[in-house]
């Protein structure tokens, strides 16, 4: 999505006459990447669906408060990340539920050479789940979304150097976990 398209979308949303049309276009553009960003953090589809909806409801209601100081996707990712943080605070058992889901996945994968890669994917997610919240967010945004540290800094309101450190430690911990559970 280029900046011209983003600016057009924003102007549509901020205009009461075209707000609904602009919102639908915005959501059609960003719903999948935002969904997967949330899903990677919370694991459960039901939770991801609720948080995704909450994110875009906030976008609709508070579109006027966005001043265009950052890119649109940065703004959307920030709202989604904040909603995930709220979810973690509200649901103390979310990690237990996420681990249950990944353990069930491991149990469902039958032992065969071709499916070792599937098991590896699940263990990779389990390793990410064990990271502290901030490291997990930084790792996902950098590894899966391939965002620059400057963009991640705008989303997480953190310094670039701190984020680089977070990513480094996160990678080390994941590597260690995969070695121990190979």
């Amino acid at each position, binding site marked *: 999505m280029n900046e011209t398209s983003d600016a057009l979308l924003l102007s549509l949303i901020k205009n009461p006459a075209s707000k609904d049309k602009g919102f639908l276009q915005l959501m059609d553009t960003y719903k*999948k990447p935002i969904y*997967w960003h949330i899903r990677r953090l919370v694991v459960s589809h039901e939770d991801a669906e609720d948080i995704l909806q909450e994110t875009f409801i906030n976008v609709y*209601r508070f579109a006027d408060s966005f001043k265009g100081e950052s890119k649109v996707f940065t703004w959307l990712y920030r709202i989604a990340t904040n909603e995930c943080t709220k979810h973690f605070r509200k649901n103390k058992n979310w990690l237990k539920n996420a681990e249950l889901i990944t353990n069930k996945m491991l149990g469902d994968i039958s032992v065969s050479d071709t499916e070792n890669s599937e098991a590896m994917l699940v263990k990779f997610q389990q390793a990410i789940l064990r990271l502290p919240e901030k490291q997990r967010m930084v790792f996902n945004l950098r590894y899966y979304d*391939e965002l*620059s540290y400057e963009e991640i800094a705008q989303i997480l309101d953190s310094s670039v150097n701190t984020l680089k450190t977070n990513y480094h430690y996160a990678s080390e911990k*994941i590597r260690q976990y995969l070695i121990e559970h190979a």
Partner: protein
Amino acid sequence: MLKMNKDSNDMKQLDDFPGIGKKLPYREPIDFFEGLSEKTLRQAKLREQNHRRSLVLWRTVAVAASISAFALVGYFMFEPELTKSPQIVQEKQLPEQPLIEIAKQPEIVAEIKKEVPEKVPEIIAAKENNAEDMGDILADLSDEELMQLAAMYKADPFISESEQ
């Protein structure tokens, strides 16, 4: 996957786990994204409508509470009965008849006599002993003393109006 920006200097870091790649072990439900935008828009409009209604409700409640508070304060500030002194209120409340009956008891009379000014005991003593001496005593009093005596006599709650 949305690729927004790539920092070519750090590309090597993104291949930290080459055997795993970017694949995830879970999928979204089939047709999950179909109609999601329209459904979310409906929810957003409903939420905004509910928010506006609750704002109106809370503003109404706040105004009603303010008016009630002002009315209550005004009532207590300007209510006439409450501005009178407690003594007068108490005197109005106390039944006069029973007090007079109690006051006629000899021991109560003696108690009251102890508290009246000096001239009155003389007057009472004269009245009890010899009524003719009363005139002499009164003649000795100054105008001011006579007026004080008259005021005390008039204000005495234990003397009935017919005696006055």
